[in-house]
């Protein structure tokens, strides 16, 4: 079995497929243990895990907290309100503080692309990127992949449509890197104003017509559209967006009959997704995504802790 070779998990771009598979396999075993009620482990006993969130995110923080506690780590949550952060210097001040506190594992969420990578250069802890700006959100893509693999039995040769605000989505970027590495066909679907420049160079197909983009897809992955995007003029209104790019039953009919629907949450019902679809247990796997999130984060923390112990 290959051993994840890095000290940190900052991005999925460039991560070799065997290591992705390793993380997914380990996460799957944690998922089974969690379901079996055997939730307490001690692989992180004696280690300190700090959740350092410069951006609000109840669900991701809670998921990491639960993962850390189930593995026996001492978990501390630090929320740094962005208004009090005097840009980046505080970031490096924070790094020296964390080093002084002998942190072993650091989970970082930040509104700026590259901020966890900057911290990783300065801290002794193993760093997990829990979402940085519009760059990457590796554990989200891993939990999405695990959910797909459990539902479809494999990731090979699936057609996956990632829909909506791809431009501002770190979830989309991490998913594109992971899914392409695992031999999926990846499409991005959205209005041209929300599709990043030259995204096709990453290896995806671009669609501006949602029905064409969903045709024969195995997986429909919806992204959150933030309200500010409408204020910025990238889309004129929520109702227009829903009409052309919101997932409803009529559009979903173009995907395969057994296509699953995913969303990283939190959802804007009636903007990017119709409640009838989001709540349809035969199509929506949104609940399972959350469940797999804890298992994936347990796997990531486990692997990084092993590397941390080996290095110290």
């Amino acid at each position, binding site marked *: 079995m290959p051993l994840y070779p890095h000290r940190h998990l900052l991005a999925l771009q460039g991560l070799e497929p065997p290591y992705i598979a390793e993380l997914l396999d380990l996460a799957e075993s944690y998922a089974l243990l969690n379901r079996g009620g055997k939730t307490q482990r001690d692989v992180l006993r004696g280690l300190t895990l700090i959740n350092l969130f410069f951006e609000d995110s109840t669900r991701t923080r809670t998921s990491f907290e639960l993962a850390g506690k189930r593995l026996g780590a001492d978990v501390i949550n630090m929320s740094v309100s962005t208004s009090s952060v005097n840009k980046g*210097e505080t970031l490096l001040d924070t790094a020296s503080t964390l080093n002084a506190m002998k942190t072993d594992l650091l989970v970082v969420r930040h509104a*700026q*692309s*590259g901020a966890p990578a*900057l911290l990783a250069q300065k801290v002794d802890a193993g760093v997990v990127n829990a979402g*940085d700006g519009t760059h990457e959100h590796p554990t989200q893509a891993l939990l999405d992949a695990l959910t797909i693999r459990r539902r479809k039995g494999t990731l090979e040769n699936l057609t996956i449509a990632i829909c909506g605000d791809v431009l501002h989505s770190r979830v989309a*970027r991490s998913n594109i890197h992971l899914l392409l590495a695992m031999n999926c066909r990846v499409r991005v679907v959205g209005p041209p104003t929300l599709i990043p*420049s*030259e995204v096709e160079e*990453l290896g995806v197909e671009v669609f501006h017509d949602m029905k064409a983009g969903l045709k024969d897809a195995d997986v429909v992955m919806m992204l959150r559209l933030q309200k500010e995007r409408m204020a910025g003029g990238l889309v004129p209104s929520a109702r227009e967006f829903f009409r052309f790019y919101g997932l409803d039953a009529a559009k979903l009919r173009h995907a395969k009959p057994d296509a699953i629907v995913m969303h990283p949450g939190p959802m804007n019902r009636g903007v990017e997704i119709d409640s009838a679809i989001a709540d349809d247990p035969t199509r929506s796997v949104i609940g399972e995504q959350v469940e797999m999130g804890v298992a994936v984060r347990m796997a990531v923390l486990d692997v990084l802790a092993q590397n941390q112990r080996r290095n110290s």
Partner: protein
Amino acid sequence: MTLILNNARLVCPATGRDSPGSILIEKGLIASLDGTGAPEGATVVDCGGAILAPGLIDLRASLGEPGHEHRETIESAAEAAAAGGITTLCALPDSEPALDDPATLQFMLRRGEMTGSLSILPYGAATRGCAGKEMTEFGLLREAGAIAFTDGTRAIAEARMMRLALSYARAFGSFIVQHPEEPSLTRNAAATEGEMATRMGLPSAPAAAEAMMVARDIALARLTRGHVHFAHVSTGAALELIRAAKAEGLRVTCDTAPPYFDLNETAIGDFRTYAKLSPPLRREADRQAVVAALADGTIDAIASDHQPRDADDKRVPFAQAEPGGAGLATLLGVTLAQFHSGKLSLMRALELLTAAPAKLLGLEAGRLAPGAPADLVLFSPDRGWKVEAGKLPGKAQNSPFDGRALEGRVLGTWKAGRRVFG
């Protein structure tokens, strides 16, 4: 005091000379180029066959002073300039306060004189506070020593303002230097739009933002018969427009800076903030277009576009980092890389750094001729060195070339006949 620089290879793009020789210096001026007429007891320096050329004229640099002395003082900039072979430097006016009245402008001139090693020629602000709204007193500023007018690192955004400035500058025989980026497209951008920025998740602006502003200002130059000079041109599309405007006979000139012919956008990989510049680094095809335009004369001069930054400016997440790179000490070495790779002749490479900016600005300096100021640089074109941020001369260490190996090392610099480096 009389000084003889012996046993040198004299290279002077202004006169086309490239031959062995020695320079006799008297009273800060070049007295002769054949070593004749030297009095008894003159100081003799053996140049060991290295190249002796006119001191470099840097058409464009920001200095930390006034307003940002924590980044760089004029004294530390002068140290870096001397080490880079630069003897004349044109300072941008968007300091704090801006160089928008005769008194602050004269302050800059005096501060340059005080260094004793560097002539600082200040640009006048084109608009008050470089805010783009209200024209400054071009005539009074020109009398005070302004070499031309610009808002520095800020584009003159409004077409009406640019039209007025181009027209009015004609009355004083001057020109307007534009930072060519359409600001409504480049606001908040940290990189050039495309695959690289998409992968890194960075806010980005299309490279076309440069050509758009160039196209507009060429139209205004045609309208006003004024002279527009585009700074740090970085894209093939903009250079095409400039090439056509020159062919049409319009008064359009431009420069570029070493990062735009030596680096491409991949230098920002791993979120390297030292490579965050304004304009941002471009794709490889644009870099190659800049190299071609240096060779064919579309680009008139190479400027350092030196922008001093300190750790607080750069050790932050990429999008929040201040753009700009230190460029004084590396100006000659990075330019010579184009000579070593066969893209530019040695004469053309040096012309872009000496005779060409001198001609643009109407300066006496920039040539090896009797009566010219004895501003000189002695360098070995082949001697290697490595750029290391943290070990560069001067205070500003934010070099986008950190880690780059260069061939071409300055051995000595003379300002008005006085040795100021080496």
